[in-house]
């Protein structure tokens, strides 16, 4: 708790932010739309790229290389991109450039799917994803202020989930009925409304400086990065992602192997949790403000080991889809808590985005390592053992939250408010 007290003393003025939030009601709307379109855009850049490149006569080796380049680029740029966003005064501009980079990536994929451009697009996409996330969080912080952050992030997650669900449905249909290539033209086209949504935000983010903390940059930098709460949360996030990321892959691979019409069921496994996220996120944000961060985290995290246990026990499609919807609970809680806890810890320092990058890096490691690990377990010991292992890791994450993770809700400010 000591670092928090320091930060409070050095950076008291939260009221201007609050005023700003009230002064710009349109900004919140604009941010909603922006989140929705960005999530739309990101759907096309997922595992679908492998399918597209295969349709473009790419060999499996080159596809693997392209995807690895993307993963490495995204991982390597998490922390530097966070620092970069911290250094940029105008976060809206950062967001706009990131979206423009997405436009370029999508067009490169669509028009010239040759190795050079695909690799370039993968690197560019990895980098701009890493700048976009923190920039969005920073804009949210400016618009909503520290007290309104929980509610604001709940809304962000809601609209991102709507965007994800719509995007998956839209792009799935596009790939099925038009062509794989058309998906990337659609992606490029969707960057335009995302840019348009940023227009009302352009003055907001410039007007309000996020940081009011002073003191030597280096000292505070170290203080923030060695903050126990941040590190513990980073470990929690890593374990959670490790257990969560391969679940969909295992479940859907199993479905393709067993049921008659896998594509539709897998689509349900992807879209249904997004609907739950859209419904539950604002509640998660509210609950974080009223009951505290820990309880929301616990709720979201505990859904995970249960889900894994059910998957281990049954492969009945209806049950699997129903339980997969629980992913929405975990997704909502985690999606809202990740930027919220970071904003609690580092929201008024100059290192908010750097800290977000650190957590993003942890999440990235968890996600990257776990998919091959779970695949290996499933190959050698069967899918049931893989689910048991994921359940154990998920339980570990729950334990870590339960016994190590401190509450980060800023209590003293609540009284001021």
């Amino acid at each position, binding site marked *: 708790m000591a670092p928090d007290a320091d930060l409070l003393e050095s950076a008291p003025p939260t009221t201007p932010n609050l005023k700003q939030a009230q002064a710009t009601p349109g900004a919140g709307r604009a941010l909603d739309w922006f989140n929705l379109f960005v999530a739309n855009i990101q759907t096309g850049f*997922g*595992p679908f790229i492998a399918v597209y490149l295969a349709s*473009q006569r790419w060999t499996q080796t080159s596809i693997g290389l392209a995807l690895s380049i993307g993963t490495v680029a995204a991982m390597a740029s998490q922390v530097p991109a966070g620092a970069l966003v911290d250094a940029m005064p105008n976060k809206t501009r950062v967001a706009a450039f990131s979206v423009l980079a997405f436009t370029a990536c999508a067009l490169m994929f669509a028009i010239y799917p040759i190795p050079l451009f695909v690799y370039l697009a993968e690197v560019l996409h990895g980098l701009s994803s890493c700048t976009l996330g923190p920039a969005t969080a920073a804009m949210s912080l400016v618009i909503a202020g520290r007290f309104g952050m929980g509610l604001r992030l709940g809304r962000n997650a809601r609209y991102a989930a709507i965007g994800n669900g719509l995007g998956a449905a839209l*792009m799935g249909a596009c790939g099925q009925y038009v062509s794989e290539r058309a998906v990337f033209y659609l992606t490029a086209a969707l960057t335009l409304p995302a840019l348009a949504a940023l227009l009302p935000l352009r003055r907001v983010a410039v007007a309000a400086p996020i940081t009011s903390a002073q003191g030597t940059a280096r000292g505070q930098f170290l203080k923030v990065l060695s903050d126990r709460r941040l590190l513990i949360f980073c470990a929690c996030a890593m374990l959670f992602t490790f257990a969560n990321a391969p679940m969909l892959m295992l479940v859907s*691979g199993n479905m*393709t*192997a*067993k049921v008659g019409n896998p594509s539709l069921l897998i689509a349900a496994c992807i879209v249904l949790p997004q609907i739950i996220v859209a419904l539950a996120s604002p509640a998660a944000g509210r609950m974080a403000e009223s009951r505290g961060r820990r309880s929301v985290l616990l709720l979201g995290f505990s859904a995970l080991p249960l889900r894994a246990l059910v998957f281990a026990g049954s492969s009945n499609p209806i049950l699997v889809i129903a339980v997969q919807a629980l992913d929405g609970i975990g997704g909502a809680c985690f999606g809202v808590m990740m930027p919220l806890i970071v904003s609690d810890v580092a929201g008024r320092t100059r290192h908010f985005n750097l800290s977000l990058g650190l957590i993003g890096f942890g999440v990235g490691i968890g996600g990257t390592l776990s998919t091959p690990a779970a695949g290996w377990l499933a190959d050698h010991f069967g899918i049931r053992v893989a689910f048991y292992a994921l359940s154990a890791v998920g339980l570990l994450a729950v334990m870590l939250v339960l016994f190590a993770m401190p509450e980060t809700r800023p209590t003293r400010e609540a009284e001021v408010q």
Partner: protein
Amino acid sequence: MTTGAAYRGAACRRLALIVLSLAGALSACHTAPSRERPVTPTEPSIPPAETPPVATDNAVATPTTEGTKAEPAEAASCTCVDNTPKPAPKRKPKPAVRAPPPAPPAVAPTLAAPGEPSIKLVEGSSESILGKKVRGQDGDDLGRVVDVLADQQGRVRIAVIEFGGFLGVGNRRIAVDWSLLKFEPGGADAPVILNASKAKLQGTPEYKGSARPLALMAPAAPLSSPPTAPK
């Protein structure tokens, strides 16, 4: 030159090391099989640089024409060791009763000229296989051909097909006997017809890049491929 580079600094030294080790690895690649090859036919351990042509001719026991030097020798040499022990136990399903099996389209052999390679027009039309759509006989979408596997003689044996999934999530790759595929005229966009039901595809274990995968084989295997066993 490498010594000069080594004196210049750590980076150069590392580079030189990499170059050296690469060279070592390459030479190992070339020499290792050629050393093992002579073990089976007649004489062990002969200076590696000179043996390859002689040794491969012995090992493969194919017509010793000069024209077919590089590729068959290379293909045979890579898996020569692997070849001898394993196919023997797995060779049980070999009826070879059927006379008119759908002859797998032979690709390379027809092109081989007796003396020198020469440029000629390819007979019939040919088309790229990678990325081709696969359909069932009743028009079901069964995915795409994403890889083609050849055996040690260079004959195309297996098509790797990717199917299922949604937006790239939950895809499944399986190996399918080449002779189960039917190619129909219609150019590059025409799908390949796969002579198997969806349920059969689902029952086939996933292909994970193994050299000896389990594959979905044609009912009466025409040439009964040694590296794969019917499931």
